[in-house]
């Protein structure tokens, strides 16, 4: 005769297996962004090329991307061509030049092209810290009102953009980017 208790170890095993299986598909390095839903932290920083003082007002009106980058960051180089493509199609991208050397950063933009409307210089990483940045590249989406609505850590590419960013940039240019390329230049 089989008693219900006999199945307890099996049940416990099944639960544990289910839990571990779910764990396989979780990225342990992904951190929830603490700033989601909040306004972009106020700042007063220099612009990389012009040297003008910038505040958070410069990012308005959204939606726009704020891309945290640096010349020492290899993945930033990887995503750079994609950012150039986005900018060409009219997506507003602001750069946050994070803990970088401004001279090198300007050279980088001359050599590789400049996808950014403006670049916020954050030499000591203080603004990055206010944002909750823990590495580069990171890309934030801010909405019309200047609130942070999404953060992506790591390289931004077409598939990530289509999955997580598309809804704030409701145009069909990703589907047929070529037709609308250069429209807003």
């Amino acid at each position, binding site marked *: 005769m089989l008693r219900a208790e006999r199945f307890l170890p099996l049940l416990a095993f099944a639960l544990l297996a289910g839990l571990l299986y779910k764990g396989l598909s979780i990225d*342990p390095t992904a951190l929830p962004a603490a700033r989601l839903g909040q306004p972009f932290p106020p700042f007063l920083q220099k612009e990389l090329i012009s040297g003008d003082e910038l505040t958070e007002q410069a990012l308005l009106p959204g939606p726009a991307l704020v891309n945290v980058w640096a010349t020492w960051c290899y993945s930033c180089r990887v995503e750079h061509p994609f950012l150039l493509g986005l900018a060409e199609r009219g997506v507003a991208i602001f750069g946050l030049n994070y*803990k970088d050397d401004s001279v090198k950063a300007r050279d980088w933009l001359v050599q590789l092209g400049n996808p950014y409307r403006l670049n916020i210089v954050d030499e000591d990483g203080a603004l990055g*810290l206010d*944002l*909750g940045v*823990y*590495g580069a590249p990171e890309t934030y989406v801010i909405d019309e009102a200047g609130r942070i609505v999404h953060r992506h850590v790591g390289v931004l590419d077409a598939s990530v953009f289509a999955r997580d960013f598309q809804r704030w940039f409701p145009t069909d240019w990703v589907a047929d980017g070529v037709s609308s390329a250069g429209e807003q230049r």
Partner: protein
Amino acid sequence: MSVSRTVILWALLSLLPLAAWGVIETYSFSSAELEARYHSLSQELRCPKCQNQNIADSNAPIARDLRVVLYEQLEAGASDDEILAFMVARYGEFVRYRPGLDRNTAVLWVSPALLLLAGALGLLWHLKGRRVSLPAALTAQEREKLERLMAQTSGEADP
């Protein structure tokens, strides 16, 4: 000779614990109390980049930045709660090794108690089951046989 001395020196050097070279930084605190709080907080704050280290142990740039912020805020007279709130506002409950109780961390806080309870119940259940299955006391006949066997065995074992 000098060669063997060099070898010995290298051998001794290799014995030095590398882990002892954690993070070496010098901050001059205005009081011993601040320094103590710096050490306890820097061990309680988790590095967002290298996720299984606290900011005291980590060499990641972000951990260094957080140590500087921690130092500056302590010197500016911030309370522990204020500093933790500052960190959590930027990096989420993740940065605390002892996160506050909320929807996401409930499992973390409650599961040890639940597991302990489950273990206790399991133990009780097991003990109860064992008592039921204890063999009945020996009959006189069995006892006699047992004693005979015991006497026989000990007789064989002792020279």
